[in-house]
C-alpha cells in the first residue's frame, strides 16, 4: 500500500502533526486499528474524511463529525469520521486520510512517499526486503522491517536514554548512602540496647534481621509511594508526550516498570543497611553494654 506523507517538520516549533494518505480499502490489513465499523464506512464514503488516533484527538479535543482545518499543514481541511486506538504504537498520534485526497491537497498527484508491504505469516522479512530492493524498478529503493525503520527515528532520543540510565545509577548510589548513613546512625545510638537484647537471648541473626527489616520496610514504603505518585501523574495526563522525527511517544507504564522500580529501591535499601546491620549483629555483649556515645 503506497502512503502519502504530510507532516510538520522535525524542526517545527510546536507539536508534530503527521497525516498518512492511505488506501481506504486495505489500510486495516497493516495494523490493528481498534475503530467502529460505522466510522470506517463513514471514512470510505467521505472523500475528505479522516480517521484520527485517540492521542491526537485527545490533545486537540477533536470529536467525531467535526471539520478540522490545520494551519500547520497548509490549511488542509478534513472531516473526522472516527477515532481509533492501536496497541501502543506511535500511530495513536496519526491522522489517516485518503491517499488521493491528500495528494490533491498538496498538488502532488500520483506521488507517494512510502510503500507498506504486508508479509504472509512465516515469510522472512529480511530476505523479502532484499529481494524487493534487487528488483529493477524506476527508482532505487530501500526496504526494511518496520522495526528497523522506527529505530532510525528513535535513534535521536538514544542519547537521552543514556543520560537517564546514568541518572538511575546515580540515584541508586544516593539510596545506598542515605540508607547506610541513616541505619548506621540508628544502630550506633542503640548499641547498648543491642547488648541488652543479646543478654535477653536474642541471637545475632535476630539482630541482623531486625536492622535489615528496618531498612527494607522504609525502602519498600518509599518505593511504593514514589511509584504511586508517578502513576498518578501519568494517569492525570499532566505530562506531554515527547516527539522526535516522525515518532511521538506518550508516557505509559506497566507492571514491569513498577516491579523494577520498587525492586531497585528495595535492593538499594537492603544493601545500604547490610553493613551497619552486620556490625550491629557482631557486637560483643560486654562492649555493647559498656558503650558510651
Amino acid at each position, binding site marked *: 500500500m503506497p502512503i502519502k506523507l504530510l507532516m*510538520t517538520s522535525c524542526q517545527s516549533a*510546536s507539536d508534530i502533526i503527521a497525516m498518512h494518505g492511505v488506501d481506504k480499502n486495505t489500510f486495516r490489513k497493516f495494523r490493528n486499528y481498534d475503530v467502529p465499523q460505522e466510522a470506517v464506512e463513514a471514512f470510505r464514503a467521505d472523500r475528505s474524511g479522516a480517521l484520527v488516533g485517540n492521542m491526537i484527538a485527545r490533545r486537540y479535543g477533536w470529536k467525531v463529525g467535526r471539520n478540522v482545518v490545520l494551519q500547520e499543514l497548509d490549511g488542509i481541511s478534513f472531516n473526522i469520521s472516527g477515532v481509533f486506538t492501536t496497541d501502543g504504537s506511535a500511530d495513536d498520534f496519526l491522522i489517516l486520510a485518503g491517499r488521493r485526497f491528500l495528494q490533491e491537497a498538496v498538488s502532488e498527484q500520483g506521488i507517494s512517499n512510502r510503500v507498506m508491504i504486508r508479509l504472509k505469516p512465516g515469510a522472512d522479512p529480511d530476505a523479502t526486503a532484499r529481494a524487493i530492493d534487487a528488483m529493477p524498478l524506476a527508482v532505487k529503493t530501500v526496504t526494511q522491517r518496520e522495526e528497523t525503520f522506527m529505530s532510525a527515528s528513535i535513534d*535521536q532520543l538514544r*542519547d537521552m536514554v543514556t543520560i537517564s540510565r546514568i541518572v538511575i545509577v*546515580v*540515584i541508586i548510589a*544516593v539510596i545506598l548512602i542515605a540508607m547506610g*548513613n541513616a541505619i548506621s546512625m540508628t544502630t550506633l545510638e542503640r548499641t547498648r540496647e543491642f547488648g541488652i537484647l543479646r543478654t535477653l537471648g536474642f541471637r545475632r541473626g535476630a539482630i541482623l534481621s531486625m536492622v535489615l527489616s528496618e531498612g527494607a520496610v522504609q525502602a519498600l514504603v518509599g518505593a511504593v509511594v514514589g511509584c504511586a505518585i508517578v502513576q498518578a501523574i501519568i494517569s492525570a495526563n499532566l505530562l506531554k508526550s*515527547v516527539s522526535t522525527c516522525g515518532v511521538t511517544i506518550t508516557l505509559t507504564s506497566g507492571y514491569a516498570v513498577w516491579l523494577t522500580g520498587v525492586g531497585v529501591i528495595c535492593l538499594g535499601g537492603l544493601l545500604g543497611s547490610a553493613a551497619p546491620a552486620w556490625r550491629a549483629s557482631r557486637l560483643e555483649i560486654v562492649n555493647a553494654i559498656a558503650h558510651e556515645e
Partner: protein
Amino acid sequence: MNLPLQYSLRNLRRRPWRSAATAAGVAIVVFAAVLMLSLSRGLFSRLGVTGSADNLLMISRKGQNAMFSNIDSPELVHVSSMPNLAVNAAGAPLISPEILHVSMVRAASVESKRKAAVSIRGVTPIALEVHNGVRVEGRPPEKGAFEVLAGAMSHIKLGVPASAVAIGKDIRFEGMYWRVVGKFTDNDSLIESELWVPEDTLMTVMRRRTHSLVVARFTSSENARSAKALFGRSGAIEKFFKGWSEREYYGQFTEGLSWVFWLSVFMVCLVAVAGLLIGVNTMYTVVVSRMGELATQRILGFSRFDITMSLLTESVLLALLGGLLGSLGGMYFDDMPMKLSYGAFRLSVDWIVISAGVALALLVGLLGALLPTYKGLRLTIIEALHYE
C-alpha cells in the same frame, strides 16, 4: 560570644565515617543536579546563539517551515527591493537563496554502513557573507561540484569520530559521494551540525528547481526589524513570503524543546530534596547525640544563636565539601556530545552550572541543619541535660 570555627571542624572529625558518608551523599546529589543542568544549558545556549538579529529568514507564503517551502527564483527580485539591505564589496545585496533538506547520510571512510539523518543546506557563495558568523577552515565548495563544507558538529549527528569528516574525506548521501573540502564553525550555534553543499548541485541531484528559503542581511538589526514589518502589509513581500528574524526563527525551537528544560528542573528539584533529607538525617543525629554537650554550652553562656551558627557551620562545611566533589565529578561530562533531531550539541558544565551545584550544596547544608537544630535547642537546659 561565638563558638570558634575549630570547634566545628573538630566535630566533623569526631565521626569521620559519618561525615564522609554525608559528604558523599551530597556529592552524588550535586553530581546528578550538575548533569541535568549541563544538559539544559548546553542545548539552550546553542539555541540562543543560532541565527543573527541582522538577518531575516523568509520562506514561501504557502510553506509551513524552512523544510517544506518552495520559492521560485523570479520571486527573489522582491527581496532585493527591500530597504536597507546590506551589500558586499562588489555592491551586490546580501541575499542568500538556500535549500534546506534532511537526508540519510553516512561517512564513507567508516566501516559501519549506519546512516543518520543530517540537515543539508544548499548554498551559493554569498551565503558565507550573509551568515557572517561562519568561519571556514579549508575552502568553500565550488559551484556544480560534489563538495561539502562540513559543520564542526556534523560528525556528532553522524555518530562518527571527527576524523571521519575531516577535509579530504568522502560522505555519501542522495546516492552520491561528496568530498569534504572545508569545515566551518558558527559560534557554537546549531548550524554547526549541518552539511553545506553547492545549491545548484543539490538542485540537480534532488531534481528540484525551487529554493526552500531566502536569508537576507540588513545593515543593522533595527533595519531588519523594520523590514520585518513589511510582512503583514499588502505588497509583494506579504504576497510571496513569510518571514522572521533569523534569531527569532531558531528561538521558536526553544518552545518545542521546553520539555528538556522542565525535565531537568524537575529532576534537579527532586534530587535537591533528596540531598536535603540526607543532611537532615545527619544533623539530627549530631544534635541528638550531643544534647548534653549543647546544654553545657548554654550553661557556659553561649546563646542559642551561637550554638545554631556553630551547627550550621558544621553542616554547611560538610555540604560544601560534598558540593565541590560533586561539581568536579560533573566536569568530567563537560563537552560530552549529545544529539536531538534539531541538531547536535554538547553538555555544558560552565561556571553557571558549577555555581548552581555549589549553591545547591549550600542550601542543603543550611536547610538540612535548621530543623534538627530547632528541635534540639527548643528544650530547656534541664530537659536537654536529661535527654535520652
